[in-house]
């Protein structure tokens, strides 16, 4: 076995065998699915306690406007507000007090909601909605035009604009800007996360080898470059393993969870449905789906997942390799873990900048910011992922990838020079000037 593959193997197995890695790999998808499930579940349960709201209406204009529902009961009382203000016994029984002391049509600020605890948004919007509707109707009625209400209702429109892209052969693909944005942001964020997490792992791995002095022994057996690349590649494989495990586990867990709960959100069947629909096959169940969902599946089908997935791996590797070698160089230059923070700052800045550039690029994926940031190698792995679902011209992808590849060869070369000097340098306060000197050795 060649030496570099020995090093890769060691870096990989020691990390993958770690309890923390196994735990994180298996728990993260569980947590993810669990969290989504929890949100859905919490949203579905209603507070079954009926809340009482007391209404004091000095105008007597709004009696019985507020209807009781399954959550709230409204009680109209003929008392002064002071009766509740200072009487805590009575106030405790009610959730809130609605106080109206003026004609709301003329003075929309004449109503107020009093409570001991902050009232929730739902209650506030329920009351406001009911009152608004009533006052709007009254205003319309005041025009004395017959059927005005009906006319207004009929004139209300809600346009759902479909976006359809023309493919090369004139094939129509239904797209969704929102979906493209979400997919772009998710993939970009994953790349961002992996660069930061695994870049930092490379750095701390190098620092540990240096501080534990094992590096002197290793360097007497292998070339510094082999040691550095072995570590970088080994950790890249750890990252890829983790990513694929996450994807696999998330799919498996959500399928299992879906079938257990009996939810109709089942990834594979939805995809099948979408495919059948695209092939023009009539499916009974598709008809039953609401039009928004049908559009979503059509849009999902419109995305080229193979292309996005393949480029994701390429940009992930390119971005990681670009930064990891620089992280390794910094790890080799410092004497202890605490010093790494100071020197890794200039590396973290472009990564953080890239994620912001990515967010803004999603708004305008063909703008100059998006274009240039998807060419600059330090930001391209993140920004290009945001742009990809919006269909980037092939020449831009090829150019951006070539720049990225040449850049990481460049940074690796620079990093190797710093690394090979730094790794054996002890007890010296490192400056940027010092590192520049090592570059030219």
């Amino acid at each position, binding site marked *: 076995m060649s*030496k570099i593959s*020995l090093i890769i193997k060691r870096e990989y197995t*020691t990390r993958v065998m770690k309890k923390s890695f196994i735990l994180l790999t298996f728990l993260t998808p569980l947590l993810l699915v669990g969290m989504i499930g929890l949100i859905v579940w919490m949203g579905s349960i209603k507070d079954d306690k009926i809340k009482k709201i007391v209404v004091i209406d000095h105008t007597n204009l709004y009696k019985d406007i507020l209807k009781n529902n399954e959550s709230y009961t409204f009680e109209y009382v003929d008392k002064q507000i002071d009766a509740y203000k200072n009487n805590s016994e009575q106030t405790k029984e009610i959730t809130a007090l609605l106080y109206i002391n003026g004609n709301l049509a003329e003075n929309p600020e004449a109503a107020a909601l009093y409570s001991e605890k902050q009232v929730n948004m739902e209650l506030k919007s329920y009351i406001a909605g009911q009152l608004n509707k009533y006052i709007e109707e009254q205003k319309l009625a005041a025009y004395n035009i017959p059927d005005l209400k009906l006319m207004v209702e009929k004139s209300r429109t809600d346009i759902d604009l479909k976006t359809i892209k023309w493919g090369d052969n004139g094939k129509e693909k239904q797209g969704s800007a929102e979906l493209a944005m979400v997919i772009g942001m998710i993939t970009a964020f994953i790349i961002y996360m992996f660069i930061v997490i695994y870049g930092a792992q490379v750095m701390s791995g190098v620092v540990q080898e240096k501080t*534990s*002095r094992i590096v002197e022994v*290793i360097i*007497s*057996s292998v070339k510094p470059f082999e040691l550095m690349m072995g570590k970088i590649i080994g950790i890249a494989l750890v990252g890829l393993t983790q990513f694929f495990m996450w994807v696999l586990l998330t799919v498996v867990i959500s399928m299992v969870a879906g079938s257990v709960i009996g939810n109709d959100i089942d990834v594979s069947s939805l995809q099948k449905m979408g495919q059948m629909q695209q092939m023009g096959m009539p499916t009974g169940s598709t008809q039953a789906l609401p039009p928004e969902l049908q559009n979503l599946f059509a849009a999902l089908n419109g995305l080229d997942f193979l292309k996005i997935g393949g480029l994701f791996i390429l940009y992930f590797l390119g971005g990681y390799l670009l930064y990891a070698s620089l992280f390794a160089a910094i790890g080799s230059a410092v004497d202890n873990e605490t010093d790494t923070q100071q020197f890794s700052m200039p590396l973290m800045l472009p990564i953080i900048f890239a994620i912001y550039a990515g967010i803004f690029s999603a708004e305008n994926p063909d703008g100059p910011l998006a274009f240039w940031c998807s060419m600059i190698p330090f930001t391209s792995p993140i920004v290009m992922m945001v742009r990809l679902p919006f269909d980037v011209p092939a020449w831009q992808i090829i150019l951006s990838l070539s720049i990225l590849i040449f850049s990481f060869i460049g940074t690796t070369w620079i990093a190797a020079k710093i690394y090979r000097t730094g790794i054996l340098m002890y007890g010296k306060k490192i400056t940027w000037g010092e590192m520049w000197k090592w570059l030219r050795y």
Partner: protein
Amino acid sequence: MTLLEVKNVVKQFDGHRALDGVSLEVPENSVYGLLGPNGAGKTTLIRIINCITAPDSGEVLLNGKRMTAEDVRHIGYLPEERGLYKKMKVGEQALYLAQLKDMTKKDALKALKYWFEKFEIQSWWDKKVEELSKGMAQKVQFITTILHNPKLLIFDEPFSGFDPVNAELLKREILELRDKGATIIFSTHNMGTVEDLCENISLVDKAKVVLQGNVAEIRASHATNTYQILTKKALEINGFELIDTQQKNGVFESTIKKEVSDTNNLLLQRLMKQTEILSFQEILPSMNDIFIDTVSI
């Protein structure tokens, strides 16, 4: 035959000169000691020999050819600051380091089994390095250094951190390695081991070699012309100086110092006239004395 030659090596660190024209020759199949006080430049010299640091000028020759990084891959090097991966298991780690030295897995396992049995540390195989004491970890590291049977071995302070029993074990192993044909260079400030192990030494002080050569010759050349003599009768001063004399069980034990110009035989003739000589032995200075003497000048 010279295996390793260091020629006029100079190394400057900012502000101070760590090595100033150091030269030495290490004969093949011998044990060579690098001595010197702390900060004399021993470790720097060892690092230059190992191609870890480059000299500002001068060169290191192996078999008459300039030493390359590739040559270094085949030597066994035990650095002063010992280091192993703390979280890794002892056996796994030893195997890894052996494979990095181009051993096949099979050979490495066989050799490791031999050495672990010899040092009686088989039970450590599945322990993590962080569970071992410093001395224990050092034993493991010693094994990983010599496992691939290197022709040239370089140990930087191999005895530091060892208890006397293990230091003795280590000494035996070093001599055994030499008997098997290896050449060993080690640095130390433990003078006792130098007398026991080394054929040749270089004493480095303040970046320069201040004393160099065969240990026996060095000791002889530092002779103070003092002798320890056992006689039947008390000695009378006759052309020599009587430093000390005392009677023990009817035998007189004396320390005498002769004139530098007198030969041993002349001295013996003078003594023989006085009494019967039971024993006659020159007192040679220990390496320790020579070390302190040379360095403090």
